[in-house]
């Protein structure tokens, strides 16, 4: 299949830098997620790869060949649009066959290929339907079949599941990944949904203000966010700002906190991020879990959401967030004094 290299790509709209020199490599067969808030440049990059946006500088290489100035219709890409953009005046069969027929491929071989694609997306027998007769999930699959029918080198997905409701989205995530594995195509997708990015991606890049803040495997990026922005955008985080006191030790307004991460030199400022689910919440009377980071506070709010409860805890003038799994233990009540503990392994040193 194919390798895509994004090499210092820049794009300006008037004074706004939509892409500020982005470099990324998408490996062969990789499912790569571009995650970020709106206006962060992720969609601009996807559209630049597709050919709808011409970069001001930098190269986009597909298998070593610069395609930055190749017209869209000669790029050998498949794309699924946000609202699918199925041609409303064509049947499902005609929609999927479109890519073949503009290449002059018609007749029995083309029909067979369309049937294969429908089987791949589990819609065999839907040839004669019109797009408006399909549910959102079915339209999504037809759009995928249409994008894959010409055996493109690269598949681009623009918020592929954004228009579906939650349950269907989760189901389609699994199917999408399965189909992508089956076809083995290098796939780049854009999303602003962090859970979707984590579930689907082999690797993910977090965008902010036209830059890649961090790129890596979902586990790496989630567990070891490089910056405060990455920590906050992908998941939630509690931040503690302070100065390095000793190796592995940061003095904050709430006391000294320990970390296993490398720290700047002694006396320099440092920021520690802790994921809310990494913090244990204990009644003051309970024995310590033996973790070396310990804090005390007063619980101000408990939001029950079935499988977990979100607690807000007040420490001085700071408020921290803690998620507790619902294991059937008695819940804490607002107003209760509690102890927070976490391991130094979960104190992640981030750039501010």
């Amino acid at each position: 299949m194919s390798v895509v290299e994004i090499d210092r790509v820049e794009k300006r709209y008037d004074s706004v830098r939509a892409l500020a020199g982005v470099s990324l490599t998408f490996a062969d067969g990789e499912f790569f997620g571009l995650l970020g808030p709106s206006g962060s440049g992720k969609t601009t990059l996807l559209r630049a790869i597709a050919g709808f946006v011409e970069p001001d500088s930098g190269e986009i290489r597909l298998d070593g060949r610069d395609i930055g100035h190749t017209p869209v219709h000669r790029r050998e890409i498949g794309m699924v649009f946000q609202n699918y953009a199925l041609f409303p005046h064509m049947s499902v069969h005609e929609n999927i066959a479109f890519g073949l027929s503009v290449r002059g491929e018609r007749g029995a071989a083309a029909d067979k290929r369309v049937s294969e694609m429908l089987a791949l997306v589990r819609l065999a027998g839907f040839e004669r339907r019109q797009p408006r007769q399909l549910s959102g999930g079915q339209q999504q699959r037809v759009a995928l079949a249409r994008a894959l029918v010409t055996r493109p080198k690269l598949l681009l997905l623009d918020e592929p599941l954004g228009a579906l409701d939650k349950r269907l989205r989760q189901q389609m995530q699994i199917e999408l990944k399965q189909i992508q594995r089956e076809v083995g195509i290098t796939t780049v997708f854009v999303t602003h949904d962090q859970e979707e990015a984590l579930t689907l991606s082999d690797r993910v890049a977090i965008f902010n203000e036209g830059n890649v803040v961090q790129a890596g495997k979902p586990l790496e990026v989630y567990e070891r966010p490089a910056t405060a922005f990455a920590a906050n955008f992908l998941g939630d985080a509690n931040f503690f700002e302070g100065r390095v006191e000793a190796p592995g030790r940061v003095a904050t307004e709430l006391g000294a906190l320990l970390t296993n991460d490398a720290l700047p030199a002694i006396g320099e400022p440092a920021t520690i991020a802790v994921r809310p689910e990494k913090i244990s919440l204990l009644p003051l009377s309970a024995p310590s879990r033996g973790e070396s980071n310990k804090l005390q506070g007063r619980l101000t709010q408990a939001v029950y959401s079935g499988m977990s409860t979100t607690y807000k805890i007040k420490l001085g003038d700071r408020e921290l967030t803690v998620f507790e799994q619902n294991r059937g233990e008695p819940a804490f009540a607002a107003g209760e004094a509690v102890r927070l503990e976490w391991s130094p392994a979960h104190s992640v040193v981030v750039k501010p």
Partner: protein
Amino acid sequence: MSRLWSTLLKCHLALILGFLYVPIAVMIVMAFNRSPLYELPVVWDTVWFQHLVSNDRLIDASVNSVVLALVNMIVATMLGTMAAFAFARYEFRGRSLLQLLLFPPITIPWLIIGTSMLVLFFWIGIGRGFHALLLGHVALSLPYVIIVVGARLKGFGPAYEEAAATLGATPWQSFWRVTVPLMAPGMVAAALFAFAVSFDQFVISYFLAPPGRTTLPVEIYSAIRKGFTPEVNAISTIIILVSMGLMLLFARFYKFGGER
């Protein structure tokens, strides 16, 4: 109180409809009245339609009008669709200004447009004639076509054309296989509009038609000046039916265009 109000409103509606349709109804009835002097009671007869058949001037003028309206419809729809596509899908210098310039011709009195066209056409040496009529009518129809097709194009956005491009369609293939079918309802509506604009046009035709080869509205006008005959009622009845039929078709297609 509310009943009185409701009765008043109904009267108001009846008056409006009366103002709009009574003159037309009278004309249609008189087209079928045997008396040339509008005598009552109405004696039902199709004598004026029979007279019409032998009135070469009116028949020739009708043929001229229909041919002109059809050619105008085709030319204006093609040019207007191309312009609307450019306005809707391409960024270019002066686009907003050009779009703004579409509207004044709709509001400038036809008399002034007609005069200025006549002056221009004589100045550049093409004078009067079918070609001048066609130029004038196309110029007059274009804004309507561009606005109607443009509204349709804005309705569906560029995503379908982008999808076609990613699937390997050249801009040409994408235009014919995706854009044209999708904007077809708008094009049909625009074509009917262009036809009606040309077919009902009097002022500009009056200035630009060559002597001896006029369009129907101009011919009717000169017929009336020479002395009113009920044949004009008969031909007007036919025109009204054709025009109203077209406008109903237009409404049908335009609504169809808005729904999808």
